[in-house]
C-alpha cells in the first residue's frame, strides 16, 4: 500500500545537466559552424589528399554541375553589383536598379547574358529558376566576359573550380582555357579532403 501511494507522486527529475549539455552543444555549433552555401546544383566533389585551406574572402568560384552546366559567382555583395555594372557596359545590356540589387544577392548564377534579366526578375519573386549554364565554348565564350568583369571589379580575386567529379573533361578544359586567356594561371581545384592516412 505505501508503495502505491509513492508512485502517484510526480517524480522530480533534475533537468539542469541536460540543459547544461544543450547550451554547451549550442555554443560548440555556433563556434564551429560554416553554413551550407546555396549551390545551384548538387556537386559531388572529387577526393584528394590536399590540405590547403580555401581562402574565405576574395573568392571567385566557377561551379560545374554533373550535367556540364557552368555557374559563376564571386563573394562580396558590393563587388557583385560592380561586376554587373562592368558587364552591362561591356555587353550593352541595361539592368534596372532592382535587378542590380537582386543580382548582388545571388551566390552564383548560370544563365546566358541574354536571359539574365528574366532570371533576375524571377529570382526577385523568390522562384527557383532552371538555369542553362554560362556558355564557355570557343564560339561564344561568355564565361570569359564574366571573368574579366570580376577581375575588374575586384583585382585581388582568387579563382577556383568547383566541379563535380563526373564532369567530362572537355568542359573543364574550356574553363581552364578561359582562365588562361585572361592570364589567370594560378587557381584552385576544390576537392574534399580525404582523411584516411596516406
Amino acid at each position, binding site marked *: 500500500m505505501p508503495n502505491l501511494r509513492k508512485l502517484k507522486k510526480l517524480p522530480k527529475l533534475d533537468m539542469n545537466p541536460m540543459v547544461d549539455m*544543450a547550451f554547451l552543444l*549550442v555554443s560548440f*555549433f555556433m563556434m564551429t559552424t560554416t553554413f551550407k552555401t546555396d549551390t545551384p546544383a548538387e556537386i559531388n566533389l572529387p*577526393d584528394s589528399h*590536399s590540405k590547403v585551406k580555401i581562402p574565405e574572402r576574395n573568392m571567385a568560384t566557377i561551379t560545374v554541375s554533373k550535367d556540364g552546366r557552368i555557374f559563376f559567382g564571386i563573394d562580396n555583395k558590393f563587388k557583385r553589383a560592380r561586376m554587373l555594372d562592368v558587364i552591362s557596359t561591356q555587353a550593352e545590356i541595361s539592368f534596372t536598379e532592382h535587378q542590380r540589387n537582386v543580382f548582388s544577392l545571388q551566390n552564383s548564377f548560370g544563365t546566358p547574358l541574354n536571359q539574365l534579366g528574366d532570371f533576375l526578375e524571377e529570382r526577385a519573386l523568390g522562384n527557383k529558376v532552371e538555369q542553362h549554364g554560362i556558355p564557355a565554348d570557343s564560339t561564344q565564350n561568355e564565361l570569359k566576359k564574366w571573368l574579366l568583369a570580376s577581375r575588374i571589379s575586384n583585382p585581388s580575386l582568387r579563382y577556383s573550380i568547383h566541379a563535380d567529379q563526373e564532369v567530362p*573533361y572537355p568542359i*573543364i578544359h574550356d574553363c581552364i582555357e578561359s582562365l588562361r586567356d585572361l*592570364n589567370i594561371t594560378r587557381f584552385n*581545384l576544390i*576537392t574534399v579532403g580525404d582523411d584516411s592516412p596516406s
Partner: protein
Amino acid sequence: MIPPLEEIEVERIHKRSVSDSKAEKRNVNVDMNPMVDLAFLLLTFFMLATTFSKPFAMELLVPAKPKENAVEKEIPVKESKTLSLLLLEDKLIWYNGITDPEVNEMEYQSEKIDALIKTQIIQISGLVVLIKPHEKSNYGQLVQLIDLLNQNKSKRYAITECSNFDLKLINE
C-alpha cells in the same frame, strides 16, 4: 558638513545588510522553460545547417598563353625524361619519350598508377609528366592523378592536349 569616513562606512554596511535580507526573503522563481526551448531550437538549427566535410583546395598552375608577337622562349625538355599519361575513361596508356615510344596500357586503379609513378620517379631524375586527358575522361580522374603526383612530390607536370600520335593510339 561632511560626516567622517567611518560613519559613511558603517551606514553603507548597514544598508547592505538590510537590502540583502530583503532579497533573501523573496524567493525568486524564474521560469526557465522558454530559454531551454530556445536553446534546443538553436541547437537543432545549427546541427542541420552545419557542414562538417570541409573542402580543401588543390592548387594548379598552368602556363600562361604565349603572346602573339612574342618570341617563343620555351625551355626544351629531354624526351627521355618525359612520361606521358593518356587518360581514358576506363584505362590509362603510358609511355616514356615522344618519338617511337614503347606503349604500355594499364587498368585505371589508383594503386597501380601510384606504383607506376613511384618507379618512374626512381628511374628517371627530373621526370616531367605530361597528363593528356582524353575527351571521354572526367574531371575526377584528372584530380585523382594530380593528387597522386602531388603525393609523390612530383613537381613537374603539365596538362596538355592529345597529339595526333596519341589519338591514333587511342583509336587502335
